């Protein structure tokens, strides 16, 4: 099953990847080849088969309600590309109110 150029661009947008023309061309061919190979899976009869999301099913995982000290904001912010007043700093999200 092929994947067209438009779909490649759409998927790149969903994945938040700014791809170059060259990358878009490369992935169009490569993703088509990989998906064509993977399409053999669609031939398997899975009627009535439950999907496996985890191989070792665990239910109701609980732990004792014990307070553990958090790492603190200084450590949490230490790797931030930009921070201000104990917060992560990002580009403006909302328009200026004025």
């Amino acid at each position, binding site marked *: 099953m092929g994947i067209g150029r438009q779909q490649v661009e759409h998927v790149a947008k969903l994945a938040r990847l700014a791809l170059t023309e060259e990358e878009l061309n490369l992935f169009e061919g490569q993703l088509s080849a990989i998906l064509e190979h993977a399409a053999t899976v669609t031939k398997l009869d899975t009627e009535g088969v439950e999907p496996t999301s985890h191989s070792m099913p665990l239910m109701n995982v609980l732990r004792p309600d014990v307070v553990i000290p958090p790492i603190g904001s200084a450590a949490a912010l230490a*790797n931030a590309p930009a921070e201000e007043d104990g917060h992560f700093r990002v*580009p403006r999200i909302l328009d200026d109110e004025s």
Partner: protein
Amino acid sequence: MTELWERTAADLASLVASKQVSAAEVAESCIARTNEVEGDVLSYLTLTPEAARAKAAGVDAAVAAGEPLGPLAGVPMALKDIICTEGIRSTAASKILDTYIPPYSATVAQRLYDAGGVLLGKTNLDEFAMGSSTENSAYQVTRNPWDLSKVPGGSSGGSAAAVAAGQAPFSIGTDTGGSIRQPAALCGVVGLKPTYGLVPRYGLIAFASSLDQAGPITRDVRDAALVLGAIAGLDPKDSTSLPGPVPDYMGALDKGVEGLKIGVVKEISGEGVNPAVQTRFREAVQILEKLGAQVGEVSLPTFGYGIDIYYLIAPAEASSNLARFDGVRYGLRIDGADVENMNRNSRAAGFGPEVKRRIMLGTYSLSSGYYDAYYLKAQKARTLIARDFARAYEQFDLLVSPSAPTTAFGIGEITDPLTMYLSDICTVPSSLAGAAAISVPAGLSADDGLPVGIQFMAKPLDETTMLSAAYAFEQELGLLPKPPLWSPS
């Protein structure tokens, strides 16, 4: 004379505990050896000699004071650079984490520190563990100690090469579809992927969360049992980690294989596997028969679909996991006009080609209109693989196959991604089923003189049977000769 760096982890632990050598001497021997061959092998992304010396001094003080020692006290080790280590750069071999210094240690790392392990450094890998040759590292291509023109396998190629080159007696790798077992096979060392959930994932930089497992890479099976015992067991910080006591893996080694029923998996042992690899594998099976195992062939029809199922599921989970690299909390940021463009630019500059390819593949198979056809279908097919395993284990105690379809291939030899993916055909089925598996050296290929591995696959949580069979096999075959680089002239 045998140098300290040549000794196994179990030997070194016993030498240190009995005061025959100091942890400092052991650390210096491994640091010197690492420096001697690192320029050829390029196993490490970060070396930590000062931290190693400090830790070794602490162990020696504990020995002198008569304090109780951990099972790995004074034993040097290398950790794959996808394992978070507090205060020590952890990159996942990605430019997006080039300057990342974790504020905490992974449970695996912490347990090894607590056991007395001495960290020598962080080893190279395919970026975010995505690859089978370590060529996808954003930093360097690690070379196979048996032949420096060949790849070490991947994604834990640096971890396997460090152990094979004598730089560290053991290392930790991670395995999502074969990333411990395949490089171990290609480098002629032992690599163990535990049952999913046995070793906590807390602090592993996530690739595919339903598959990722950390495990030991060692020079012999005894060391694999020793290290597994130190890292296994429930962790409240990982909700997928399994409760229950950790078995005595060392104590189980001597049980042998007599009377064990061992099945040779038809689908991943013949067609698609290099003839010289098949020859060594068949001889290995004869050794198991000679030791008293009852060997038969078994067909697991869905194993032929393993790669296709894996390459739908793992990239889907990766595309979700890697959404966290958004240029906000850690990692590379490249500015943009707004938040979305900042995200897009940061990810475009920070991720390498294979990571982008898998994010694209995974995003596609999870996207509206394709989810049922690809991702859900693959999850159902995964159930069929687990059923095939369960049926086989009604007849057999263990299953065996080659660990990889070829010996180490040349650096730069495989450029097509799909061809590269096929080097995982032997290892992905047990990953999808969550079962334990180990690769043990089975000799050298008659074609190229490079190592071949045999894979033992166990029922979930039956590491003890797997280790006892692997140990008996290794005792009978004997250890491989050392790679040419072992004794530099």
